[in-house]
C-alpha cells in the first residue's frame, strides 16, 4: 500500500527550509517586526482578583497623561463576546472580573513606557466575590456560577467520535459533558478477575513558544481592517474578527507573517479585537505585544486535568473494560478552543489497546483561573499520562512485565478501537517490538536505574478545509499559494516538495507563498497534525487539474491529441517521439497569452480515515536516592510512519516534541495560588535547556499506511504525548516510587522513598 513510486527528486529528501535563509539572517518578519508609520503601543490593566465586581473605574488621570491617545474600559467597548466556539470572552471585563489577569482597561500611547505609566494612573475599585479554583469545587451544587448568563455557541459544536455531547448541562460551571459507551462495561466488570481504580492529576503547562502573542491592527481610509497577528489559522481568525466587529469578511485582511512557535497556543484572536477598538478610537495603527509575564499568567495554557480510571482485567491481565472520568479545568473562559472539549481526552483514549468495553465521561469546567487553551495534541498528554501509568500499575499487580502487559493488550487488525470503530493496518505491536529491541528492555541494569514504557495512538488529521492555488509561470517555475503560515513545522517546505513530486521536478522549482486572507483560498491552518494530509490532498487536486491543462497545452504545441501526451521526467511532456520541457512549453504558451497556468485544489474534509499511527516511548532514568533527583539518561522513541516527505523536518518534529514532553515530565508546571498564576516568568517556569536533553535514539518503522497522498502520515503530535508516563514508569522501576501526578519532582520522589523506607 505504502509502496508509492517516488521520483527521488522531491518527496523523501531533506530539502532545506524554504524560509530558512530569512530566518538565519534575521530578515524573516514576525508580527512584531512590521512597521507602520504612526503606530501606537497598546497595554492592558489586568485584574488582581480572581473574582470581583468592578465597582468603578476612574481613568481621568491616565487620559490626561501626555502621549496617551486612548484609554478604554469595559464601558467603552462593544458588548461583543468572542470565542472560537463558546462565545464567552469579553473584550474587556464588563462589570465582573473572573480571573487574576483578566483585562480591565486598555491604553494606546506613543510608547510602551507611557502606556505602562498610564496603567498605573487608572483607579479601579473592586468588590471581591466568592471564587472557585478547581472543578471539584466549581461543580458543587451551591458553587458560585462564573457565567450565569447563557453563552452563545457557534454553529457546528461537534465531537470527533460518536457519543453524547451536552453543552452547558445542568451542573454548575460545566461547559460540556461528553459521554461515550462501547460494549457493556458493567457486565464486563462483573466478570472481571480483578478491578483496578486509580486517580491522576496533570497540571497546566504553557505552550512555551518563544514569540509572545503579538498583533498589529490598522484601519485604512476605505475602512479595510489590516491585521498582522501571530495566529496559525488566519482564515478562521479573520471570520471571527469580521463577525465580532460586524463587517463582511472581505473588509478584514489578515496579512502573512512568520509565526514564532504555536504548539496549539496561537489559534485565538487574543488581543486583536481590543487592538482594533484602540485603532478605531485613535485613528492610528496599534500594536499589542503580551510580555512574558502576561503570557505565563494570562495566556491560554494547556488544560489541567483530574482523571479517574477503573479497569477490569481477566486472569491473563487482558483488559476487559475501562471506565474513565476526565475533568478538564478550563479556567474562566471557554472560548480559546474551537471545540466543545479536548478531543485528545476521548478520541485517542487508550487507542493503543484492545478495550472491548469502554465508557468515558469527559467534563470541561469553568473556574476562576487563567483561561485554558489548546496545546499540541489537546487533551492527549493528560489522558495518556493516566492510561499509561494505570496500565503499568495493573501490570505490577498482575506480576507482569510492563512490556508484556502492553504486547498482550496491544490493538491489532480485527480488533475494534475503544470507541468500537474499525481501523486497518494496525502496527501497534510491531512498534513496541522495534522500540524494545533498540532500547534493550531486558538488559541488566544498575541499582536505582529504571526503565519505563508508554504508548500512544493518533491518526493524521483529515478534518478542516484546505485550499491551495497552484500557478505555473512562463519560466516553468511553480508557485503554490497557501492561506496559513508555517508555524515552524516546515509545512511550507513540505508543500513545495509535494507539488514537485506530482510533476517529477525538484522542490527548488516550487515557491510556496502565504497569501493574505483576501488573495488566498480558505485554509483551516496548522492544527491536529493535519496540514501535510489536508494540504497534500488539496495540492494533489490542483496538480491533477494542472496536468490536464498542461497536457492540452503540450498537445497543441506538439500537434497531437491530448490523450497521446505523457508526463515525463523533470516535468517534461512527451508525445510520439517529441519531448518538450516545462520551461520551453510555458515560454511558448506565454507568447500566445496562455501562461501562467493556474489551478485551485481543495481537500475533502469529509473523507473517512480508517488509518492511524502508533508511537512507543522507552525511557531510562537514574534516581539519586538521597535527593530524589531523576536524571533522564536515555530515550528510545519508536514511530509507525508512512512516507516521510522531509526526513530533516520529520526528525525535527520528533525531537522538539520529545523535549516538550521532557519539560512536562520533569520541570514545567503552572503553579496557582489563590487562583493566580505565580510561576510568572521564565526564571520560575522552567523550560528544558540544551543541558537537559537525554541521549536519544529514534526508530522509524517505514511502510505505515497513510491515507494521504504519497502515503504520508502525520508526526507533529506523536512524540510529545506519552513520554512523561514512560519517565514516571521508569522512576517506579528504579526505586519503587509510584507517582500519579506531573511533573516528577525530586521532592516527591524522596517523599516516596521515605514512605517506602517507613513501611518496610
Amino acid at each position, binding site marked *: 500500500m505504502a509502496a508509492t513510486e517516488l521520483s527521488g527528486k522531491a518527496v523523501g529528501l*531533506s530539502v*532545506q*527550509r524554504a*524560509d*530558512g*535563509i*530569512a*530566518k*538565519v*539572517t*534575521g*530578515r*524573516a*518578519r*514576525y508580527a*512584531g*517586526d512590521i*512597521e507602520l508609520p504612526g503606530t501606537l503601543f497598546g497595554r492592558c490593566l489586568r485584574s488582581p482578583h480572581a473574582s470581583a465586581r468592578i465597582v468603578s473605574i476612574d481613568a481621568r488621570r491616565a487620559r490626561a497623561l501626555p502621549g496617551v491617545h486612548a484609554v478604554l474600559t469595559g464601558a467603552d467597548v462593544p458588548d461583543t463576546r468572542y470565542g472560537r466556539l463558546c462565545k464567552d470572552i469579553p473584550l474587556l471585563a464588563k462589570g465582573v472580573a473572573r480571573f487574576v489577569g483578566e483585562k480591565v482597561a486598555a491604553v494606546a500611547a506613543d510608547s510602551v*513606557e507611557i502606556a505602562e505609566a498610564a496603567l498605573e494612573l487608572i483607579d479601579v475599585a473592586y468588590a471581591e466575590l466568592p471564587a472557585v479554583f478547581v472543578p471539584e469545587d466549581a461543580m458543587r451544587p451551591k458553587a458560585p456560577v462564573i457565567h450565569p448568563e447563557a453563552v452563545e455557541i457557534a454553529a457546528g459544536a461537534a465531537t470527533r467520535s460518536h457519543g453524547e455531547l451536552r453543552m452547558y448541562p445542568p451542573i454548575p460551571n460545566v461547559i460540556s459533558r461528553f459521554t461515550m459507551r462501547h460494549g457493556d462495561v458493567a457486565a464486563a466488570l462483573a466478570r472481571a478477575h480483578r478491578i483496578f481504580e486509580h486517580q491522576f492529576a496533570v497540571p497546566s503547562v504553557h*505552550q*512555551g*513558544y*518563544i*514569540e*509572545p502573542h503579538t498583533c498589529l491592527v490598522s484601519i485604512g481610509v476605505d475602512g479595510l481592517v489590516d491585521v498582522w497577528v501571530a495566529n496559525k489559522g488566519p482564515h478562521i481568525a479573520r471570520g471571527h474578527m469580521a463577525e465580532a466587529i460586524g463587517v463582511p469578511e472581505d473588509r478584514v485582511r489578515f496579512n502573512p507573517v*512568520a*509565526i*514564532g*512557535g*504555536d*504548539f496549539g497556543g496561537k489559534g485565538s484572536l487574543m488581543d486583536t479585537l481590543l487592538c482594533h477598538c484602540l485603532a478605531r478610537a485613535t485613528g492610528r495603527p496599534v500594536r499589542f505585544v503580551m*510580555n*512574558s*509575564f502576561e503570557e505565563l499568567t494570562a495566556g491560554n495554557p494547556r488544560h489541567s486535568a483530574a482523571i479517574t480510571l477503573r479497569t477490569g482485567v481477566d486472569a491473563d491481565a487482558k483488559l476487559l473494560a475501562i471506565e474513565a472520568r476526565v475533568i478538564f479545568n478550563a479556567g474562566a473562559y471557554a472560548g480559546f478552543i474551537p471545540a466543545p472539549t479536548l478531543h485528545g481526552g476521548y478520541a485517542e483514549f487508550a487507542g493503543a489497546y484492545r478495550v472491548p468495553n469502554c465508557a468515558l465521561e469527559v467534563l470541561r469546567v469553568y473556574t476562576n483561573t487563567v483561561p485554558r487553551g489548546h496545546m499540541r495534541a489537546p487533551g492527549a498528554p493528560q489522558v495518556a499520562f493516566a492510561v499509561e501509568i494505570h496500565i503499568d500499575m495493573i501490570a505490577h499487580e498482575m506480576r507482569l512485565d510492563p512490556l508484556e502487559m502492553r504486547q498482550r493488550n496491544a490493538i491489532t487488525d480485527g480488533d475494534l478501537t475503544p470507541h468500537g470503530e474499525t481501523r486497518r493496518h494496525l502496527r501497534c505491536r510491531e512498534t513496541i517490538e522495534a522500540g524494545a529491541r533498540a532500547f534493550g528492555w531486558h538488559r541488566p541494569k544498575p541499582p536505582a536505574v529504571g526503565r519505563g514504557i508508554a504508548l500512544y495512538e493518533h491518526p493524521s488529521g483529515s478534518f478542516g478545509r484546505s485550499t491551495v492555488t497552484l500557478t505555473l509561470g512562463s519560466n516553468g517555475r511553480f508557485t503554490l499559494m497557501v492561506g496559513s503560515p508555517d*508555524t*515552524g*513545522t*516546515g509545512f511550507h517546505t513540505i508543500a513545495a516538495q509535494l507539488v514537485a513530486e506530482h510533476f517529477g521536478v525538484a522542490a527548488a522549482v516550487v515557491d510556496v507563498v502565504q497569501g493574505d486572507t483576501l488573495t488566498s483560498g480558505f485554509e483551516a491552518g496548522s492544527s491536529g497534525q493535519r496540514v501535510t494530509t489536508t494540504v497534500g490532498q488539496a495540492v494533489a487536486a490542483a496538480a491533477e487539474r494542472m496536468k490536464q491543462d498542461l497536457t492540452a497545452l503540450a498537445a497543441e504545441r506538439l500537434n497531437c491529441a491530448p490523450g497521446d501526451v505523457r508526463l515525463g521526467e523533470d516535468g517534461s511532456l512527451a508525445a510520439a517521439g517529441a519531448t518538450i520541457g516545462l520551461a520551453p512549453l510555458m515560454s511558448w504558451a506565454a507568447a500566445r497569452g496562455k501562461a501562467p497556468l493556474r489551478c485551485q485544489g481543495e481537500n475533502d474534509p469529509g473523507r473517512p480515515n480508517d488509518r492511524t499511527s502508533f508511537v512507543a516511548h522507552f525511557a531510562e532514568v537514574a534516581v539519586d536516592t538521597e535527593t530524589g533527583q531523576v536524571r533522564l539518561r536515555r530515550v528510545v522513541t519508536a514511530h509507525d510512519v508512512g512516507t516521510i516527505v522531509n526526513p*530533516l*523536518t520529520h*526528525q*525535527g518534529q520528533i*525531537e*522538539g*516534541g*520529545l*523535549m*516538550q514532553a521532557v519539560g512536562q515530565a520533569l520541570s514545567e508546571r503552572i503553579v496557582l495560588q489563590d487562583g493566580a498564576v505565580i510561576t510568572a*516568568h*521564565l*526564571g520560575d517556569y522552567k*523550560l528544558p*535547556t*540544551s*543541558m537537559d*536533553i537525554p541521549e*536519544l535514539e529514534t526508530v522509524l518503522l517505514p511502510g505505515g499506511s497513510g491515507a494521504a497522498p504519497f502515503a504520508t502520515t502525520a508526526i507533529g503530535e506523536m512524540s510529545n504525548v506519552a513520554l512523561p508516563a514512560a519517565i514516571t514508569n521508569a522512576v517506579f522501576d528504579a526505586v519503587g516510587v509510584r507517582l500519579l501526578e506531573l511533573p516528577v519532582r525530586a521532592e516527591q520522589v524522596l517523599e516516596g522513598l521515605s514512605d517506602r523506607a517507613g513501611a518496610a
Partner: protein
Amino acid sequence: MRRITLTLNGASITREVQDSRLLVEFLREDLRLTGTKESCGVGVCGACTVLLDGYPISACLTLAVHVHGCAVTTIEGVAEGDRLHRLQEAFLAHGGLQCGICTPGQILAAKALLDANPHPTRAEIQHWMMGNLCRCTGYYKIIESIAAACGAE
C-alpha cells in the same frame, strides 16, 4: 536623552537615546534592526542575544547607554552580504531552526563560542548554549549544527 556612539555590525553610528532605553528597544524600534527578538524580558530565554565586544549578552537587560563606545554585533551583521556565515549555513543544512524566533540569538551565542573556542567539544557546545532556549527543535539539531560548523565530531 544621551548621545551614544557605537560600532554596530562594523559601522560606526551615533544616535540620541532615552536614558532608560533598553538595548533591545534601541535596536528594534530606533534602528529598525528587528532581527534581534525579545521574549522573556528577564534574561533567561536568550532570544535577544547580541554580542557586546564579542561577548554574548541579553539586550533586554542592557541599557542602550551602556553600549556607548562598544562594538555591537546583531544577526544582521553575521553574514557578509549574501555570503552566509558557516553557522548560518550549518543551521540550514542540519535543521537547527524551525519557527526561527530564537535563531538569531542561537547563532550569535554560537558565534561567540566559536570566536573564543574554534573547536569546542560537543559537551562544551551543549553547556555554552544552555542560555538560549528553543521550544521547536529540542536542541539536538542546534547542537549538531554548531558541531558541524566547527568540524567537531
